């Protein structure tokens, strides 16, 4: 079913997608002419497929549950922010704070993301086929961030228990983030994530980064790091 944002109001499109009539069997939707609108496909809860044809603005697919959303273009700030489950696939680049605070689901970005990718992520798997900007995985708590390209400054600053896998160069690590040994269970998990992203790169080509766990509790000796 085609939903043209040049003809329909954004709110009516989102309402339609948020209130799917389960008796009817329509599960495939295409949104045309998104023209950089914000909050396209925010708050979807059903297992439906939506393809957005073009560039979108902020908070696309925010709070997503169950839906599979593909963007054939670039996305603005906060794509899939606070996603709970489902899949979001961006075929272009993403702006800052991609996958912010998201609890679950998978976010795949074919291009690059700018700063703060995966900020405060809480369980989502984020796979970026390009590079990520500075302060990515800042205060990340759980889940996995996989980066095929390079990472900017202060990767994983104030990190909790997220696993970060980077294939390229890391400009610098943030406070309390360190390179970690890649164990068997990490390789298995990474292989599974790479498969999800349709990639046959070997897990061995990545380095793993995680929390040094020194800043979990306040310690006066670490005051300069907080």
């Amino acid at each position, binding site marked *: 079913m085609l939903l043209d944002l040049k003809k329909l109001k954004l709110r009516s499109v989102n309402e339609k997608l948020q209130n799917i009539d389960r008796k009817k069997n329509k599960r495939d939707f295409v949104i045309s002419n998104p023209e950089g609108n914000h909050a396209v496909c925010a708050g979807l809860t059903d297992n439906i497929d939506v393809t957005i044809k073009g560039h979108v603005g*902020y908070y696309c697919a925010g709070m997503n549950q169950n839906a599979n959303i593909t963007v054939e273009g670039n996305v*603005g700030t906060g794509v899939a922010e606070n996603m709970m489950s489902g899949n979001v696939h961006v075929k272009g680049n993403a702006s800052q704070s991609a996958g912010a605070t998201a609890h679950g689901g998978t976010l795949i970005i074919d291009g690059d993301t*700018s700063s703060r990718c995966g900020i405060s992520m809480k369980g989502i798997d984020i796979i970026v086929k390009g590079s990520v*900007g500075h302060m990515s995985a800042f205060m990340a708590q759980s889940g996995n961030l996989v980066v095929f390209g390079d990472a900017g400054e202060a990767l994983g600053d104030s990190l909790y228990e997220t696993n970060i896998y980077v294939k390229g160069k890391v400009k610098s690590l943030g406070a309390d983030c360190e390179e970690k040994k890649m164990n068997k269970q990490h390789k298995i998990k990474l292989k599974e994530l790479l498969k999800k992203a349709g990639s046959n790169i070997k897990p061995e080509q990545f380095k793993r980064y995680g929390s040094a766990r020194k800043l979990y509790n306040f310690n006066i000796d670490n005051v300069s790091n907080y």
Partner: protein
Amino acid sequence: MCGIVGIYLKSKKFEKSLGGMLSKMLVSMESRGPDSAGFAIYNKDKNKIYKYSICLNEMSFERFRKEIKKKIKLTKLDKNSDHVILKSTEKPSKIVPILEDFKEISLVGYGKSIEIFKQVGKPSNVVKKFDLNKFSGSHAIGHTRMATESAITTDGSHPYSTGEDECLVHNGSLSNHNNLRRKLKKNGSKFNSDNDTEVAAGYISNSLKDRNLKQTLKKGLSDLDGFYTFIAGTHSGFAILRDEIACKPAVIAETKDYVAISSEFQAMAHLPNVNSAKIFEPEPGVVYSWGK
């Protein structure tokens, strides 16, 4: 918040539609800045005539015309709503002090190419008021303001121009503008408002005496403290710079005919062939410039 927009034309194809392109960009950034709006539009130099952009404020056009005629041998006065473009072959060193003596009006900019119009109110009303659609030119910069640190007035609106054919728009806030204003005043810079952006514009004008625009902005990274995305214009082009934290957004679309910059992509969604443009975000702390 605040919205910033800019277009630099690489070919002559869109010169006549520059105003129309910028107008749509400004209107779509109304949600980021509903308090005031303004734009600087650059038209190629003509016969060494200087253009002085003046906001009349409360002064009537008739009274201004009468009084200015006593002081300057005029070429032309172009009235556009509450703004006037005064055209004269006389140099700024002569004209600017005369205009500064008029306490009621604001001189918002001058140069051989630049014309600046800015006013309080919604961007959609401001572009209508000045009929931005009819403007042509080589490049243009615009701003929609959500006031944070100084009053909603014409003097508090962007763009700020503190030198010949120079202008600046800013999304963000500076934290060291008071200190910097004091320093610049000592060196002879003049300021009309308490606004932080005006200080940054003054800083740029001062620095441009010894450097080019790219070098000036690069130096600004260490001298200007705060959050910013700047677009700075000169007679030949413009440049963009984001601070190194890069909280303030910007996106660039480049085609063979033009370069467009805006705070959000939706401001450029209507531009010709934008879907085949190279679209990217300027990296933090990196100066991007077009023109000389």
